[in-house]
């Protein structure tokens, strides 16, 4: 483990490996319990394994991100980058990735529910939680190490973009609700999967609005730079 320099990261990896090994050691114990694999032992083993996996994943991601950020930092100082465009692209890419992962999970869960392989979900849910936590931790760490260099105007525009995105999300939610009432009627029933679908589509809409808003102002920045006084 020479490539991992941090003491804390090493401790996290050691604890994660220990948790995974303990989880595996509990498999023979769990076989003695009734109703294997749908009993509490299975959930416990799954959770332990996934927690260990999540810990290792978080350490590896932190390590990779910190190396990349150092490389990027050296090149960024010399070059003039349109910060708004960069932020808009990064945010939009993250949103697309989140939507793909979220919808895939959602689709798989619906499929698993339909085809009666629910026990697969017990493993998938902790993975998703751990991956989400690890990604959030990596993101926060990255932001702490390399704080974004926005000036006041860019900061204000970003805030406005977020505000526009939030308003669009609210308008979309109200519109979806009113449309559903109009189509189905006051005593109707709706499928349960419409709730997560509404959530994901609303978040995607809000993110897209933010992206368009920021890209629009980034283009204006480019025009001013090209046509401005020498």
């Amino acid at each position, binding site marked *: 483990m020479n490539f991992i320099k941090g003491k804390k990261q090493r401790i996290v990896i050691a604890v994660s490996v220990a948790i995974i090994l303990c989880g595996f050691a509990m498999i023979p114990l769990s076989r003695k319990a009734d109703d294997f694999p749908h009993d509490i032992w299975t959930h416990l083993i799954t959770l332990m394994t996934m927690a260990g996996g999540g810990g290792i994943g978080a350490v590896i991601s932190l390590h990779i991100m910190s190396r990349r950020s150092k490389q990027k930092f050296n090149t960024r100082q010399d070059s003039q980058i349109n910060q708004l465009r960069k932020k808009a692209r990064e945010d939009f890419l993250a949103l697309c990735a989140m939507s793909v992962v979220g919808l895939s999970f959602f689709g798989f869960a619906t499929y698993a529910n339909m085809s009666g392989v629910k026990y697969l979900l017990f493993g998938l849910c902790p993975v998703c939680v751990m991956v989400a936590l690890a990604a959030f931790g990596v993101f926060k760490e990255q932001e702490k190490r390399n704080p974004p260099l926005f000036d006041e105007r860019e900061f204000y525009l970003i805030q406005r973009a977020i505000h526009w995105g939030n308003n669009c999300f609210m308008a979309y939610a109200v519109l*979806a609700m009113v449309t559903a009432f109009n189509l189905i009627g006051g005593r109707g029933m*709706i499928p349960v999967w419409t*709730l997560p679908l509404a959530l994901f589509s609303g978040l995607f809409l809000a993110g897209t609005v933010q992206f368009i808003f920021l890209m629009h102002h980034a283009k204006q920045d480019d025009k001013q730079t090209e046509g401005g006084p020498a």
Partner: protein
Amino acid sequence: MNRMQKMSWMMVICIGTALILSAMAITILYFKIGFPRAWAGWSFMGIAGFGGLAPLIFKKDPGPIQADERDQLINLKAARAGFAISYGVFGLLCMGIWEYYRHQNIETISIHLLPQLFMAAGITAFFTHALTILVLYGKDNKQIEGGPA
């Protein structure tokens, strides 16, 4: 205390009162007549709507400057906090309900759940916004009092 703080106090009091009265009504009705009729206690949440009258009750200041940069920043931060928490609540409710009904093998839900979800997210947003404004102003005032002369 400026206008924004007064409006926030009114919002917090209205929503807080509505929540407490609703909880009390649901508890009392539950012991009297049981669920699902006890859910009628939620109707006390209508009191939260009085918080929306705050801009009418607290008139704008007569001077030309209504809010300085610090006020705007606090409002911006509070709005972001309100939306962030309401997104969280909305997401948790959507996914929680989906997960619960999936385990119960129920494929459809009543359409009346939609406005309830939306109301929960909205009330959370307004409540958090108002509360964050009060907290941020309180924090700033403490820093000013305890800061270097």
